[in-house]
């Protein structure tokens, strides 16, 4: 295959990643959200693998393998198990005005592309055009965290943000140094495990994972 074809596939996968970020923004069911998160991880891993193959950057294979292992298999499995144990798998969230959120999301995408413009022009990588997409998906995940009121969707928003950051690293510089990527992955893994414990504590104390109950600490 020629270089440009690889590039097109990478672009397609990144666009898919962004699309999934939009889908997550409007997904009401927790189960659906976890599935979407797994797909997003897969899109990220595939695009990383193709970049690794077409540019001969071997350490990116490890990064892709790490993404598949953690974000496509381990974490979704962990979350599914968690919501079964917490009996939260039928949980449906009422979302605040989905069309408006979507419009705000589109504005964020335009903003992200503008912000990424000067940097991607400087970059020497073949994948520089997807930096905008990466920044947009970071901002969309951020938006998702703001609009959600339940604990698990907020954490998935946080992890989706990490996906966007990894895409940014791949597109701008062919990934971070391996030891840093390993460290980040370790932190994310430990963080998710701690949150798993934490969910049980929240559930035990408040009888629900709804963060509406957790608004007593405020300045009055």
């Amino acid at each position, binding site marked *: 295959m020629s270089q440009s074809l690889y590039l097109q596939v990478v672009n397609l996968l990144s666009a898919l990643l962004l699309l999934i970020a939009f889908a997550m923004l409007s997904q009401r069911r927790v189960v659906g959200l976890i599935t979407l998160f797994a797909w997003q991880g897969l899109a990220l891993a595939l695009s990383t693998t193709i970049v690794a193959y077409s540019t001969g950057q071997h350490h990116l294979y490890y990064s892709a393998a790490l993404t598949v292992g953690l974000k496509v298999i381990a974490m979704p499995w962990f979350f599914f198990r968690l919501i079964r144990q917490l009996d939260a798998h039928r949980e449906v969230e009422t979302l605040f005005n989905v069309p408006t959120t979507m419009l705000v999301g589109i504005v964020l995408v335009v903003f992200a592309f503008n912000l990424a413009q000067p940097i991607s022009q*400087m970059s*020497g990588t073949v994948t520089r055009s997807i930096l905008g997409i990466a920044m947009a998906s970071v901002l969309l995940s*951020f938006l998702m965290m703001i609009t959600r009121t339940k604990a698990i969707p907020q954490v998935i928003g*946080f992890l989706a943000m990490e996906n966007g950051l990894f895409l940014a690293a791949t597109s701008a510089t062919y990934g971070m140094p391996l*030891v840093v990527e390993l*460290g980040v992955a370790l*932190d994310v893994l430990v963080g998710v495990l701690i949150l798993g414990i934490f969910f049980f504590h929240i559930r035990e104390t408040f009888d629900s994972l709804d963060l509406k109950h957790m608004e007593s600490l405020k300045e*009055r």
Partner: protein
Amino acid sequence: MEFYWLLGIPLVGSLMLAAMGSHRRAPEVNAAFSFATFLAAAWLTARIVAEGPRVVGAAWFFIDSFNVFLVALTAFVAFTTALFSRPYMRIEQEHGKLTPQRLRMFHASYQLFIFAMLLALTTNNMGILWVAMEGATLATVLLVSLYRTPASLEAAWKYFILCGVGIAQALFGTILLYFAAEKLLGEGGMALSWVHLNEVKTDLDPVVLQLAFVFLLVGYGTKVGLAPLHNWLPDAHAEGPTPVSAVLSGLLLNVALYAVMRCKVLVDGALGTELAGNLMMGFGLLSVVVAAFLIKRQTDVKRMFAYSSIEHMGLVTFAFGMGGAVASFAGLLHMTMHSLTKSAIFFAVGHATQSAGTQVMDGIRGLIKTNPTIGWGLMLGTLAILGMPPFGVFASEFLIITTAMHEHPWATPFLLTALGVAFAAIFGRVQPMVFGETELKRLPYQPALAPVFIHLVLVLMLGLFIPPYLADWYRQAAQLLGG
């Protein structure tokens, strides 16, 4: 060699305390490990001061006079806090607030937290710095919610999510930094090495570095507790156990500010302008003012002192933002003074709340009658943190304000007003707590107040006389910060 001891001891300590389970002697083991860490830190400090900066372990670690001073401070306060937590946590357990299992988690996480902070301070790699900062947050999340009360769970959740989002911004900043560095230094781990970056900092691309610094400042600044990103801080400090409040306030905030300063040195070199300093001055000044006015409205004693931490970190950030030899010197001095004084105050406050059975200030009265040593500890600590001479905080605040008058006169009215408001608010609150009328009874345990007075004596001593070798040492560190 001593360097590996420094990192190895807390790591081994954490594993051992986790394996020991809820052993009766666990608090002593915790203190012993902290003491060993402190010895290693002192040894390392002595060598660095004598032999100058050096790179350790195949360039993965780098120690100069700036971070070795923070290493020494961190190890010292970690040791005294371990001494304090030994009786304190036993009393909490007897009051039924803790189970042995949770105490075990406290000890293991405490050592892990110390390890993460020392790693963040000594690493040469900006990526590992990020990893260690996040590790320090993770180690303390479950400590903040140790009591499992609704409020503590809420505080820990806020701490995790807000710091997580903040630190994600810092990761993006680090990616941008790597992006700029990779062009000059090539791919691989060494492109994020601070020593290498520092050598080529004038050639780094200014546009990228500018953007990177904004992300890094917002990201690490969240952990420093700079307004308007400070929301997690008062909650985490007020709801966690007191030893955790003391190390969060006295140490973690410093380490986060250290990360910002390492980035600032690089950005200053690349930009050749005052942008980074001005941003820091802005954030710092805002924090001082916002915190001072929020102190007035607090009813919870730990929350009030948490806001005071925001105020003081704002002041240090402002001083570092001004740059220059005197301001950087004052900033470093103030960092030290704040760590020592604030942790002493938290120790005294911890026992005061134990004896009154509440953290609400209206419920704590007449400490001087019931528990004179706790009362005096709290009063003297409060006077010290409010900047009364002859305590060391006065010296550092005086230096910061006179430099500000000289270089940025517009900022002085804000600083002075904020310090005045904070003084009136805190003193007005603490005075009845110490001297008021009371029906409360004496705390029926032996409180651990030696750490309080050790800290306060150090602060007093440094206020009266800074030994020349220490002043030299601060001056060297200030020079590294672009003095």
